[in-house]
């Protein structure tokens, strides 16, 4: 490119760039590759460092055992079950958050009602109350509502967030008045206006938010740790923690590595496959 030459990005400087970026990519990807390789070897190989650089022959057996056999240390629960739990939680949080925050943003922007701004502030202030600052009392509420070890308990407290509402509010406010007036002249009510005009316009925002919230839900730690006692209700991240003991010798390391890979893969796939929306959405929504 002409301007590349003009500002003096020399070949040497570009080669240096490639070199540093390759180094960066190695640092970023290597830990995941390392665990993938470990997941295809026997426990004996894993425990006798250095680990081979290439995948071994035990992959299929390890993966089959983890998914279908159940892991002794976590009460015989299979990784399939854990993946299911985590998928339910991540989807529940992502879809639930999008629906709830779209609805409330719709009410705040397109209607006038008493205490409208008070409601907006009530939602806004929850930004400043992350679960970490109110863990114990929130846990007590969950106990009283009998939500321990339930999907509802895992999802509900994480489903209300001011960020998504703020984002939709901001976007809805850019919709020209004429659009709403034209729709009303044509006799469209709130539901038709939402379905035929607002929803199609919001799709990019929804896609971007979906990726961000899916990852958020999938990677939750503190809340699932508190709210699940039974092994069969654990998310995969919590179960992984329970499978590991550095103190005693019978940790099934090959299954631990398989579980790590299975816990990492779905969100990576979501991010990589939906990259276009995700990157745009992330950089735009959080600013």
């Amino acid at each position, binding site marked *: *490119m002409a301007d*590349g030459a*003009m*500002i*003096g*990005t020399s070949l040497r400087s*570009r080669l240096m*760039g*490639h070199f*540093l*970026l390759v180094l960066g*990519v190695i*640092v*970023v990807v290597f*830990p*995941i590759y*390392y*665990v993938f390789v470990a997941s295809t070897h026997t426990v004996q190989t*894993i*425990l006798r*460092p250095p680990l081979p650089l290439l995948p071994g022959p035990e992959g299929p057996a390890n993966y089959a055992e983890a998914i279908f056999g159940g892991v002794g240390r976590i009460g015989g629960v299979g990784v399939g079950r854990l993946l299911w739990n985590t998928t339910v939680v991540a989807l529940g949080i992502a879809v639930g958050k999008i629906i*709830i*925050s779209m*609805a409330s943003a719709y009410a705040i*922007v*397109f209607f*006038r009602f008493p205490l409208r701004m008070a409601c907006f502030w*009530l*939602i806004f202030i*929850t930004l*400043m*109350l*992350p679960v*970490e600052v*109110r863990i114990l*009392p*929130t*846990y007590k509420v969950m106990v009283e509502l009998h939500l321990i070890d339930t999907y509802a308990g895992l999802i*509900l407290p994480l489903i*209300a967030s001011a960020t998504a509402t703020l984002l939709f509010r901001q976007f809805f406010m850019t919709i020209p008045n004429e659009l*709403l007036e034209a729709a*009303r002249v044509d006799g469209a009510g*709130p539901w038709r206006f939402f379905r035929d005009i607002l929803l199609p316009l919001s799709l990019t925002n929804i896609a971007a938010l979906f990726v961000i919230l899916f*990852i958020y839900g999938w*990677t939750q*730690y*503190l809340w699932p*740790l508190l709210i699940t006692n039974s092994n069969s209700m654990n998310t995969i*991240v919590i179960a*992984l*923690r329970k499978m*590991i003991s550095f103190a005693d010798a019978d940790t099934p*390391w090959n299954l631990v590595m398989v579980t790590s890979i299975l*816990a990492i893969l779905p969100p*990576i796939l979501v*991010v990589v496959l939906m*990259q276009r929306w995700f*990157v745009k959405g*992330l950089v735009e929504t959080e*600013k």
Partner: protein
Amino acid sequence: MNRATFPHKYLPWLLIAPQLAISLVFFYWPALQALRQSLLREDAFGLKTQFVGLTNFARVLSDPAYVNSIKVTTLFSALTAGLSMGIALLLAVQAEKLVRGKGLYRVLMIWPYAVAPAIAGMLWLFMFNPSFGTLALPLRWMGVQWDPLLKGNQAMALVVAAASWKQISYNFLFFVAGLQAIPRSLIEAAAIDGAGPARRFWTIVFPLLAPTTFFLLVVNTVYALFDTFGIIHAVTGGGPGKSTETLVYKVYNDGFVNLILGDSAAQSVVLMVIVIALTAVQFRYVERRVHYG
């Protein structure tokens, strides 16, 4: 602008009700309970409760373990934010130079974003495990007495590495976006005036990147304070000793493991104040951006 609206009376309440209900039940009620609890003294069985004013705060803030935890958190946050932002900026500047291959690097660079912090911690612990981690071997060959499960500063190094690794993706994406927003003409003008690459970076690019850097500083601080609980819990459990016990880990540990309710609640309130301060800083900055941008 006067916004056109629908003339409904009850529909908006119906639409906003779910979010309000969840906010009240899971946010406001527990937060108020934390405030109330922080002013009370209660034994672990919940049999006796008495109002003690700010005694809990006084005790918590003068407790050497809490002071230690503040120091640990400050060190951990500064190292994590500095390391991950530094590496991300270096790589983003390299990527900006390239004409081809940017996309491929970006696809690979965003992987850690999708990895749960707790798992990021475990990955690093697998690699550097003193008994079977492959990367612990070269450390031992170099004569390092490597045992992060027993040595405090090594444990700190390990959790910082994992926490920074996880955050590189996020910072990289934002620095790339920030760099793209800098007008090429400015950089070209400086080049014509004879400024070399390093000078161009420090006198033009870096100052113009300040809003992005500042935004990331706030986000990374919040990340290091709160989102890294999983790393600490999964890798060190706050130990060895209390060398990696961050503020959030201590709230959890005092509340759920040691059952010191009043102290845990007082710590929660302190954290709440920190979050409110950080949010205020963040929004002040956003406001400024709107004014000048």
